[in-house]
């Protein structure tokens, strides 16, 4: 299978020479097309830094990140913005919806800045809304809908541009368990029926159990890697808990 993302021996240092912090210390992995990969780690493990580097928000100190064969560590300025716009979709913990725009407009905005034609925008927004079951709230403002609905709107916005890779940063962090489950079901829809490749960062074992594969990061290094394979979600969840226990009490937030 084709690899969408290749992370090759990346390193990220903070601070000066005298006081150097290695946030990422030689991490390499690949993500296949259509894969739903989870990255787990406690706070301070480097998982957010890793996500920032992949999403081009931050720059690596050494190593290469290849997305669809293109080395994104070499991109600059406008190229970088264009790349982010066209190849990546983002889902954030705090939704990052514009409160002045309706749900419909929030989703459409991602397309308008890519200069997609108006007629096509309308069609695509309605299509994705149908899949994520948010059609009924399209004309509402963010303050009028629940957290789960907000996050599904944000997911719709992330996926509507047909990105090569969707990056989700603690997507369930601000949701109650019911909303979280609904959202993760939506992720499965995106992943299985729309073929979206999703990279999700979380410290929540339940959320992570929806992924196909999980990378555990500790102190800037990959500590472990587990595959879901043919096991059920419940079995996979138990596997995750095992690893978390192995990692040490640092990951307290398991359900």
């Amino acid at each position, binding site marked *: 299978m084709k690899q969408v993302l290749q992370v090759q021996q990346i390193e990220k240092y903070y601070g000066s020479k005298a006081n150097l912090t290695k946030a990422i210390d030689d991490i390499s992995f690949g993500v296949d097309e259509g894969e739903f990969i989870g990255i787990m780690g406690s706070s301070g493990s480097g998982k957010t830094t890793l996500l920032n580097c992949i999403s081009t928000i931050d720059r690596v100190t050494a190593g290469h990140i290849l997305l669809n064969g293109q080395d994104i560590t070499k991109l600059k300025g406008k190229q970088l913005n264009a790349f982010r716009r066209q190849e990546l979709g983002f889902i954030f913990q705090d939704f990052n919806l514009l409160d002045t725009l309706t749900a419909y407009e929030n989703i459409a905005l991602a397309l308008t800045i890519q200069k997609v034609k108006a007629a096509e925008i309308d069609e695509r927004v309605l299509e994705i809304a149908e899949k994520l079951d948010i059609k009924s709230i399209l004309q509402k403002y963010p*303050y009028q809908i629940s957290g789960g609905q907000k996050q599904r709107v944000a997911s719709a916005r992330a996926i509507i541009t047909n990105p090569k890779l969707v990056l989700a940063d603690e997507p369930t962090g601000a949701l109650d368990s019911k909303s979280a489950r609904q959202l993760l079901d939506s992720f499965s829809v995106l992943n299985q029926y729309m073929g979206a490749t999703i990279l999700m960062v979380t410290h929540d074992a339940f959320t992570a159990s929806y992924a196909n594969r999980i990378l555990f990061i500790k102190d800037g290094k990959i500590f472990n890697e587990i595959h879901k394979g043919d096991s059920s979600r419940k079995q996979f969840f138990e596997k995750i808990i095992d690893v978390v226990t192995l990692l040490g009490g640092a990951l307290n937030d398991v359900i």
Partner: protein
Amino acid sequence: MLYKLSIKNIQKSIKDYTIYFLTLIFGVAVFYMFNSLDSQQAMMEVSKNTRDIIKLMVETLGYISVGVAVVLGFLIVYANNFLIKRRKKEFGLYMTLGMGKSQISKILLFETIWIGLFSLIVGLLIGVFCSQLMSVLVVKLFKADMSKYEFVFSGAALSKTIVCFGVMYGAVMFFNTFTISRYKLIDLLTAVRKNEKIKMKNPIACVFIFLASAVLLGWAYYMVTGNFENIKLNNLWIPILMGIVATFFIFWSLSGFILKVVQSRKGIYLKGNNMFVLRQIHNKINTTVFSITIICLLLFMTISLLSSGLSINRYLTKDLEEMTPVDINLIKQANLSNDKNKKQSNSQWTKEQMKDSHREISQTLKNCNMDMNILRDVVELKYYTVEGLTWERTLDSVFDSISEQYPYLRYETLEQIVKVSDYNRIAKLYGIKEYELKDEEYIVLCDFDSMVEFRNMALQEAPEITINGKTYKSKYDKCQEGYINMGTSHMNTGIYLVPDSCELKDSQIQYYFLAANYNGDTQEEKKEIEKIFADEEESKLLKELKKKSSIGELDGITKIATIESSVGITNIITFIAIYLGFIFLIASAAILALKELTETSDNKQRYGILRKIGMDDSMIHQSLFKQIGIFFLVPLCLAILHSVFGIQFALKLLSVHIKTKDLLPSILATAGFLVIIYGGYFLATFIQSKNMIKD
């Protein structure tokens, strides 16, 4: 510690709100400049007549400064309240750290004192410096002698500025303490977190209200221009109030209206950042309708003041040289009498004055021991009046339409009659057209626009007049150009020229008139002679005349005084227009700038989201530019529309007839003024906002 905190706070807010602090400094500087006009060096070097004019100007400016202080006070208090409200979280932090309200008030007190002192000192320094530049301008305008230049400093203006701004800052301190005392800690801490609910208006209601206000505004415009004749001064508030209400509701509904229209055109709405920009504007217009209305009205006043002020200036000075062909005109009432039935005024005349009123003016002057050699080209004539020949009589046929339009015109006024050869001697001296008359003919001379119109209508009927039993008919079917009394513009409301053969009695003489030039070759020599006729304190002649004749305080007009006072009055108008225009403009621009800057800092997060979903910086800047641009442009556009009608109305009200062509230079000057200052504020706001949303 409190002191240190306040200094740090100021440093921070100066960085963010530079524009506001610059406006404060400008305000102080301009306030000082205009109030220090009287002590300018230039003022000492001008003639007495001009000095009087300048005195009048300084007095007027003094009154206007009160209004200006109110506007600036409003700006300062408003801006301050605005900035204080934004610091709730900071105050909350202070209070959780154990600081009392009185201590927070103290911090604010220090801040206000520092900002006040800083803006006053810097503003005054700039003001003192700029007033030197302004005195150069004054010299040019009043044509004063500036060979002895000195640096001038006005203590009066200084203390006035300090007192005015001191009061304003005092008010700010009071407001601050009051505001702080009302805050509760819990509100302060949650102030930021509270999610602002966006009140959305019903778009259809918006469309309806927008159209209704547009109609209301159109009606107000019609009332002050198209329907001008029917408007009465004491009903003037109706169209003005209508205009203000319409302005408010147009802004109230505008964004909803536009949103509705644009939304229905998906091709535009779903293009680039249009959607975001429109929503941004629609979102904040709710909270800004009131201030936008005030800004629009201030801008309207700025534009109207500047362009009509500058136009009147041009209008008043245009005909001046042409209308003052000789150095002096003197007029004296004839046939004075204390008889109640014949009395011309309420004065009680002495015997000597009554006797003098049968002499020609040159005789009077000789009788007052004046050396006639100071005058040359002396021409004298007599105005006659005939009982029964009144305006009411000569304008009989058009009387109804005139009295409707000018109900206060004095129709019992007697028509003035002059013999044609007398007139021709004057006309020759003035270098204007001379006339010929056969027996039994008359000519009406008139050059005052609205009177010409009426007289022409009346002359169409070929009316006959009767003088001492003899009948005359009009030579022409309309008025002819010509005048006898010089003035600042064409003001001759009507003179009847009759043939020399007309038998007019000496008892029918109304006025004696004399026109002459001063017997001097240079301007200096003429100015010396002018003193004999114009210097009330020094001139012996004037004292004699007052005692012996009815000329009294020189019933007449001199070229030098006319030009000086006319130039002076137009200069007063110009100064006041610029002064008020500038203050209104910076006040409105500063409020807008402040609003937009705080808006940007509130919306930092939104721009962050845009960046995260992949919007280019250039596109983000573009949307910022569009937003700020629209907020600056919308009140300006409506203000310009208001002014189109407002200026017309103002000119009509002042009975100034200016062709659009002549208005153009002053409108261009106003536009330039606006572009530089308002545009400058816009650019500064945009640049500062751009810096704010970096990272």
